[in-house]
């Protein structure tokens, strides 16, 4: 192993011209700013343009909306994070409905078959929304496992407008991620899709077929 490493590094260092660092000016990105209604309109517009369902709602009303959507989409089993405010609120509102909530609080090895083949939808919390591209910003971790937003064919996400950032750059800086990254940081900008078969757009390839955003204040 080390021999290749040393050879590669040596050859790179031996390059006749070693370079000094090249400065980068991020103004062109920092200049991108949208405020208030403009931001909401842009965010929801971009999401809807790629088949994302966006429901504008409130911090109080979203659980009821979720219940309504689960019924409409015939969701019988909903996976969620047990220990987050969103997960708890959802469990609470769905308690007396026909929707069974399943907490993602076991290691995936213990219930893989179930998650992959017997869960209709997943619910997660977005840490933020990026206005420039209409993207959800998710920080995964012990509370919010990675497969929750990926495996079930329907993905419900709760996002607050208060957590908007103009750009990914702004979001990364806001969360101080240069100093240390969680295992997995995700941007999700729509349902899974492909145009690989003669450029025909098809939704729902490997990731969720439906992305449903509950956008609160």
């Amino acid at each position, binding site marked *: 192993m080390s021999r*290749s*490493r040393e050879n*590669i*590094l040596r*050859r*790179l*260092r*031996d*390059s*006749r011209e*070693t*370079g*000094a660092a*090249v*400065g*980068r*000016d*991020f103004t*062109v*990105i920092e200049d991108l700013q949208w405020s208030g209604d403009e931001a909401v309109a842009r965010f929801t517009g971009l999401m809807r343009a790629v088949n994302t369902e966006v429901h504008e709602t409130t911090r109080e009303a979203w659980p009821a909306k979720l219940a309504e959507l689960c019924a409409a989409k015939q969701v019988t089993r909903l996976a969620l994070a047990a220990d987050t405010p969103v997960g708890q609120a959802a469990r609470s509102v769905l308690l007396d409905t026909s929707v069974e909530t399943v907490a*993602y609080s076991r*290691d*995936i090895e213990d219930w893989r*078959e179930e998650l*992959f083949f017997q869960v209709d939808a997943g619910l997660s919390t977005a840490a933020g929304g990026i206005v*420039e591209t209409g*993207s959800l910003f998710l920080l*995964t*971790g012990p509370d919010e496992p*990675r*497969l929750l937003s*990926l*495996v079930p064919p329907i993905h419900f996400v709760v996002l607050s407008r208060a957590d908007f950032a103009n750009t*990914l*750059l702004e979001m*990364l*800086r806001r969360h101080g*991620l*240069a100093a240390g*990254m969680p*295992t*997995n*940081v*995700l*941007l*999700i*900008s*729509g349902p*899974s899709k*492909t*145009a*690989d*078969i*003669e*450029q*025909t757009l098809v939704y*729902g*390839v*490997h*990731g969720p077929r439906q992305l449903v955003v509950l956008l609160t204040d």
Partner: protein
Amino acid sequence: MDKPTRQFHVRIQEALNDPQIRANFRRAMDGLMTKRANMFPDPDELERLRDLGAAVRRNALAQLPELLERLEAKCAENGITVHWAESVDEANRIVLDICRRHSAKSVIKGKSMVSEEMELNHYLGEFGIEALEADLGEYIVQLAGQLPSHIVMPAIHMNTRQIAELFAEKLEGVGYIEDAEELTKVAREILRHKFFDADVGVSGVNFAVAETGSLVLIENEGNGRLTTTAPPVHVAVTGIEKVVENLADVTPLLSLLPRSATGQNVTTYVNMISGPRRDGERDGPQEVHLLLLDNGRTRTHADPELRQTLQCIRCSACMNHCPVYARIGGHAYGTVYPGPIGEILMPQILGCEEVGALPGASSLCGACGEVCPVRIPIPKMLVRLRKEAVDNTGASPVKGGGAQRSFSEAATWKGWEKVHASPALYRLATRTATAMGGLPALGPLKTWASVREVPKPAAKTLHQRLEERGNSR
């Protein structure tokens, strides 16, 4: 003409004669060019963004050894094991080794052009390990036993009908369904089980961040995320040039790549991985490996001008805008990377003996350089590689430099030099041509003459007329 070059010309002719290739690529490239143009409505902003993208890449290449060391250290801190491979053979052995240590029988693949460079699937297959492509386009070409014909849309050369036939032929229990949605469902179902069962997931890397020890992957389908999350082991393979210094550096590239490639604001998923499953986490691989491949890149890096080749972020804008690629399609090039980037990269990886003729298949129109989001001066690189291909001084920095030099062509240019370096000889030659009244349609002119009128020399040259007019000095 050597054999590889002859075969190249044969493949070109086959493609030009194939109405489906012509129609598919023309339609697809037109669509992609329009989509890209729509996504960059402000020319000033685009140029500033390209400047920033180019600066990010140049900075990374200027400090490449230091950044690779930093990347390795940070990855190690994060629990990612870093491997270095000088050659594709070595790279394949490393992946095999990891698979064997885990008694892996099946590998699921996210999209990776570097793994195509390695011919990894074939290699693993020889050791009884099934490597299955999960990206739909790659899955299709794998079933068909072909190379991808485009670096972003691998199956762009095929029609729905052909794909339906392919599925019906190769997949057990699947009938003929000429419908993109239905075909996608079939692939999704099959691959879902494969994700579920896979022992190892192999992916590429779009950008590796030295500052944080992170791997950034972008995609639309979700197979990249599944490949890097579901199996217990994740192996990421990349060329050494894909590193960037800081996390912030990724942002202009993410702004440029999807828009340049397919006219999307952003890909459906942007996936930033910084380690295997941590304590308390419920999913994710137990082991993450990063394999850094050289395969000729250090040689390219050594030359400051050729180093620019390594700025590439594999967006495909160059081939989408290339009038040659639109007419011959990806397979005609016969290489892992086709189109303009292929023409400058492949001679440096494989050498001028094998593919030294590739840079000649260009009219140097410059459409590629005009759209490259990181400002690689592709036309300049094409001319540079043409020079290296005929440079027989022994001092060429490119593998196989001089291999394309032919006695007859060199003699032709020596003759051209003699005539054009001597004003008297030149005037004599041009006056002779005017006196003859024409040029014989022989040799190279025969090709011209088959579809065009051969131009006739004028009765008097400009030299003569301006002499008469009194402007000559």
